[in-house]
């Protein structure tokens, strides 16, 4: 915890309204993006945003300083977001999990290379929609790991702290999320391939 964070937390604990204002100014953009990516719905993201800062400003004493202030806020936002997802009925159609080999490991089923050059930085609207749907269809815990680590760019430790799991558990969830998304994108690219999904011979 930095000196600045320590001062901010002390002010929050005194009920200083200016401190809450500073906290919102500094972190609301990041928290809104996490909430949006986690829930996939602007209205729910807004509610998560409000809940997160009300929780944080009213319960600053629960911040123990074991992580950064930002990670603590990510934790509150992720918990609020996941609670909303659990209440949501019915869930979106889940992505099909690659076959589990019995030891918890997934095997890929889609092994064609893609007809996509990473130097081509233009993403079509159709591809963007497929990607949004794919993330929305991940199991909640895997989506949270993917959003924090790969989309928000938190380190393995920061993302694990935010989700209150071990770094090794975070890695397992991230690995599965990436593989499930990879399978979905491979299907997408192969459906559009001139040789009908058999790019690699």
């Amino acid at each position: 915890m930095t000196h600045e964070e320590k001062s901010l937390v002390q002010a929050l604990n005194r009920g200083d309204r200016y401190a809450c204002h500073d906290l919102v100014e500094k972190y609301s953009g990041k928290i809104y993006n996490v909430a949006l990516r986690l829930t996939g719905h602007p209205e729910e993201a807004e509610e998560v945003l409000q809940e997160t800062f009300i929780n944080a400003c009213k319960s600053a004493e629960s911040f123990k300083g074991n992580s950064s202030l930002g990670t603590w806020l990510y934790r509150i936002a992720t918990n609020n977001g996941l609670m909303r997802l659990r209440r949501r009925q019915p869930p979106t159609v889940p992505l099909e999990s690659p076959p589990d080999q019995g030891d918890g490991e997934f095997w890929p089923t889609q092994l064609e290379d893609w007809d996509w050059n990473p130097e081509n930085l233009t993403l079509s609207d159709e591809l963007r929609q497929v990607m949004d749907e794919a993330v929305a269809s991940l199991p909640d815990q895997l989506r949270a790991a993917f959003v924090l680590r790969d989309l928000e760019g938190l380190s393995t430790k920061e993302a694990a702290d935010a989700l209150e799991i071990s770094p090794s558990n975070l890695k397992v969830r991230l690995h599965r999320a990436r593989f499930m998304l990879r399978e979905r994108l491979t299907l997408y690219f192969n459906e559009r391939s001139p040789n009908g999904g058999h790019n690699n011979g």
Partner: protein
Amino acid sequence: MAEHYHRSAQCQELLGQISDYLDGELEAKLCAELETHLSSCKDCQVLVDTTKKTITLFRLHHQTKAEISADVSARLWQALDDAGCASPEE
């Protein structure tokens, strides 16, 4: 769709290491073993390459951060004020 992943013992071992490898978090010895395997296994090469492209694509897609609109911001400050936390005038 092709389901021809040949699942050798080496492929099996590699599978669980791909994320760490791509994140640069795989220890040097395992990294070298993995790269030796990749040089002779087409399926694993494709797996590593398309996983890497997956991460690249999603990061590219989410490069632009959503901005909080004036309406969302106003409602956030109102909610905080109602909860006795803060208001923008302060």
